[in-house]
């Protein structure tokens, strides 16, 4: 508003006032503006500190609350908590990188407890803010922050990705499958690496085309680029494409459905987005993690929680939308693999552990 206000004022001046009175007008405008802005800031601060006490708070990352994937999964969990307990929660969607620290601090100052944030990118901001509020509990998903009042929840995405990679390679007729990542970070490479390992386990000759959308957080929300990347992979022969790209993935699944090939969803169950054209979804139970954190409230235990196949933290989605795509035999094979991974008979390499992937 602050930017638009003076502009509109200017338009009026250009129409009527002489250059001299223009200067006077601008000056007056500015001096009048300052107290208004101050009042506005004070009002906002008052509003936030006056919020209900000890409600949990949730901060979404830049993919946006309705990315049909990672953040939306967190939202689902929060809504479940609301429905189950009847108590509310506070939330904010980030618009820019600079808001991270500010958002965490605002919620902590307002007495919200615990403050849950979804995304690795909050790591450094939380490491800075957490010691300032020793009585507030923080929960971060997808990142480990080593502070006495932080619970870090990480998922073994490579295990879930292994299973969908196996499915993809088994289903593929061209022996070429694709992967579209969001932002190029180790976490997303972990998805990719697990996927390739699974695919190679099913068929050592399968070729996996890998693309990342970009290096900026905006890469989580660029469906047009997601669909272009998918079209390129389809043109190169891929007939199953897995995405780990948040909101960008909406474009990936759309392009896959348009091209008549199969997509694989991520984080939330995305099978319903294009029934019959989504092979499965690599589910990551962010919703359970958020609901759990909200339910435990301020009593939540600090530390590191690792959720893998064994804890049902990750998995693959099977519902009425993809029933016809996965045969009973296939399902039995996948269940068997799942047992083997849980039992330790199959070790899925974690990209993040050493920054490299044994297969590509």
């Amino acid at each position: 508003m602050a930017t638009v206000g003076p502009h509109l004022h200017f338009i009026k001046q250009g129409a009527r006032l002489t250059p001299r009175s223009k200067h006077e007008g601008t000056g007056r405008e500015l001096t009048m503006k300052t107290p208004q802005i101050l009042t506005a800031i004070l009002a906002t601060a008052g509003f936030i500190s006056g919020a209900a006490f000890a409600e949990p708070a949730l901060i979404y990352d830049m993919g946006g609350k309705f990315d049909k994937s990672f953040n939306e999964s967190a939202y689902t969990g929060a809504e479940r908590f609301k429905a189950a307990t009847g108590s509310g929660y506070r939330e904010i969607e980030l618009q820019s990188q600079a808001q991270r620290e500010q958002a965490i601090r605002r919620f902590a100052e307002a007495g919200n407890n615990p403050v849950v944030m979804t995304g690795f990118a909050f790591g450094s901001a939380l490491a800075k803010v957490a010691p300032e509020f020793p009585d507030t509990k923080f929960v971060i998903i997808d990142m480990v922050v080593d502070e006495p009042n932080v619970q870090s929840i990480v998922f073994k995405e490579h295990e879930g990705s292994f299973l969908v990679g196996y499915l993809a390679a088994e289903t593929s007729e061209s022996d070429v499958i694709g992967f579209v990542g969001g932002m190029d970070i180790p976490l997303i490479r972990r998805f990719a690496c697990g996927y390739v390992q699974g695919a190679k386990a099913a068929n050592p000759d399968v070729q996996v085309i890998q693309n990342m959308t970009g290096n900026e957080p905006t890469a989580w929300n660029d469906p047009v680029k997601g669909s272009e990347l998918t079209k390129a992979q389809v043109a190169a022969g891929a007939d199953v494409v897995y995405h780990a790209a948040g909101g960008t993935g909406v474009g990936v699944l759309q392009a896959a459905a348009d091209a008549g090939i199969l997509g694989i969803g991520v984080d939330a169950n995305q099978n319903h987005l294009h029934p019959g054209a989504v092979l499965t979804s690599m589910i990551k139970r962010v919703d359970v993690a958020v609901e759990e954190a909200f339910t435990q409230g301020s009593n939540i235990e600090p530390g590191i929680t690792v959720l893998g196949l064994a804890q049902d933290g990750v998995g693959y989605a099977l519902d009425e939308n993809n029933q016809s795509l996965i045969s009973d035999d296939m399902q039995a094979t996948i269940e068997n693999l799942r047992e083997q991974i849980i039992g330790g008979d199959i070790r899925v390499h974690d990209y993040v552990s050493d920054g490299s992937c044994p297969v590509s």
Partner: protein
Amino acid sequence: MDLTTIVQILDSMMRLSTPLIFACLAGLFSERAGIFDIGLEGKMLASAFFSAATAAVTGSVLLGLLAGLTAATLLAMVHGVASITFRGNQLISGVAINFLASGFTALIGQNWFQLGGRTPSLSGDGRFLPVDLPFVETIAGIPFLGKLYGELISGHTLLVYLALPTVLLSWWILFRTRFGLRLRAVGENPEAVDTGGLSVSALRFQATLICGLLCGFGGAYLSTGMAAGFIRDMTAGKGFIALAALIFAKWRPGYALCACLLFGLLEAIAIRYQNIEIEGIGTVPLQLMQALPYILTVIILAGFVGKAIPPRAGGIPYVKER
């Protein structure tokens, strides 16, 4: 690089250039008539939203297109009233329109669909589907032509096919009709047009109207042709790239087409080649590939365009009498 790859890149170039072409022509009409318009971005965004929203509700992409055109035209009229009738600063009015569009699309979108500013995903008749041109099957067997025709020329959405004739039509209107001559005159020397007994305001309003319509096509293409639904700020600077292309093209339709195709091509290459292995040097990093369009833009704009002279009366509100 084999033929298939080249055809695919060119195919992608066509898709990515289309919104730029519409926006660039929109800017061309407006600026040729002496109205600078940096609100192309905002008008495209408004059109993208309203066409996707209407298509989502009614299930008809044509109604959506109509709504998008209306929205963009209304914003163009706001710009016209501010900068022609009230002789305001054209740049500032443009900036205001960009802010306005970015804000109200997300706000209205959230209010209508409760999806955080998105519209629901469009399917079926709700969006422009690829059009297969006739005889694709017939000539598919011919080695070079079959591929070129089947994959590059055929299979785009209606609006892509509309973009190219629009360039030709714009050239014809601007350089071969009386209206075009007057439009250009009003951007170079409005006093002369006024002396000739024509209304400067009316001509400029007509140019602004055409600008709004063309932005409307560009925006509608983004949300109903290229993607399948609206997302917040989905224009992502395309209106500004179109402005750069316009300067690059020295305010000429033919060059504008080439400039837009070049920007589209650079984007297509950056999307496709994330990791290029070069013998002896190693892998070209992803970051460089993604920065390439911008680096080339700077080099091209700085080195190869020469002097770009804007229409002389551009940006100056016309005052009939002092």
